[in-house]
């Protein structure tokens, strides 16, 4: 009998613990979280970060892994650079997009396509977490995840629904910077981007945003 009680206590603690680790935030907590994310990006003048990208396809045994660096300079200069498995980078600067695909270069005006404008917005959103939480196109639920915060975004927009089942954003509980992005497709294949070594407001050379 004593053993049984112990067992139930143990299960109870496990459940309780589970709730604590992944508890949905109250409206007041959501408000505070949003304020913290906003102020973390309000004073952001630059950011440099390493990232790894994992593409999971259900039919493949191994995930496809890529890695590189992200550079941002206020207000809207951004360089998203893969160094592995091959060199590829995209720069957004001055309403233009520049792609260097292993030496093959291309420059495009952002005004030429809505898709590019959206891509630019998404990339900036990965730095300025506040703009990525777009409640006009997503239903968003906020959770506590260990010492971090998790925003689960389900698209309400028709076009987004075709490509995305859910986006999970993890914000660092201390810096309130975006730490992980998991994009789940309707087929349940997903892409996970994890940021490491985030350096806020350090000097990033203008050279990084030159189209070459």
């Amino acid at each position: 009998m004593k053993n049984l009680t112990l067992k139930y206590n143990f299960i109870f603690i496990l459940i309780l613990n589970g709730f604590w680790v992944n508890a949905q935030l109250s409206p007041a907590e959501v408000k505070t979280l949003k304020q913290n994310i906003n102020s973390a990006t309000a004073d952001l003048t630059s950011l440099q970060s390493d990232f790894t990208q994992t593409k999971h396809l259900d039919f493949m045994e191994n995930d496809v892994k890529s890695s590189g660096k992200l550079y941002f300079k206020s207000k809207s200069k951004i360089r998203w650079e893969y160094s592995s498995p091959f060199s590829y980078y995209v720069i957004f600067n001055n309403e233009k997009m520049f792609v260097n695909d292993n030496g093959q270069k291309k420059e495009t005006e952002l005004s030429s396509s809505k898709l590019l404008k959206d891509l630019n917005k998404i990339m900036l959103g990965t730095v300025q977490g506040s703009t990525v939480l777009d409640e006009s196109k997503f239903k968003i639920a906020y959770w506590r995840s260990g010492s971090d915060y998790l925003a689960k975004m389900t698209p309400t927009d028709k076009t987004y629904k075709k490509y995305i089942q859910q986006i999970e954003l993890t914000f660092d509980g201390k810096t309130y910077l975006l730490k992980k992005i998991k994009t789940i497709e309707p087929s349940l294949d997903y892409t996970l981007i994890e940021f490491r070594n985030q350096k806020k407001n350090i000097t990033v050379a203008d050279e990084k945003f030159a189209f070459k």
Partner: protein
Amino acid sequence: MKSLLLSSLILISSCASYTKSFKEKERTVEIYSPGYLKNFKEKSFKISIDAFGNHFGGILVAKKLDNNHYRFALINEFGGKLMDFELKNNEFQLNYAIEQLNRKIIINLLKKDFLLLFSEQNRIDHEFDNQSFIILESSIPNLKQPVYYYLNPETEKPESIILAGKKEKVKITFTESSNSVPDAEVTHGKLPIKIYLHLLENN
């Protein structure tokens, strides 16, 4: 009259068989599979497509599910899935494609190119010699024209695969490399569409 003669001459020459200049020899191979498909489990490639002045880059993943059964996915650099398709016993099956790529002309092009690259256990109908290559002629189900494997006479590795009726329709050229799958460049006759594949080693 002169122009009629000229045009019939052109017609005759264009009808000449693709293998006209080849010397047929006794068949030494009955069934042929390209060497790079042996021990193929799953691999990823950098894929580049240049079509009508536009450049597209991304990653192609390929998995062998069985003999003559492969599954592929085309993803962009940021991980977005653009296409997912299978080749099973020479039949093409589309599992998913974004709207912009879900077009007959694109699907047919990929179907041809991937059948040429990934067909195994192909029955050889004829064998030829020219000065530099051993050439195997095969007919792959679901391809209208014959397929020619150009093998290096010393290594017996394929240096190119050509789909040709009277004229060359598709040509795949391999670049010698130490990788298990050589780099491949696919051209489509006069059509300005080129596809490049390069094996990624760390995946």
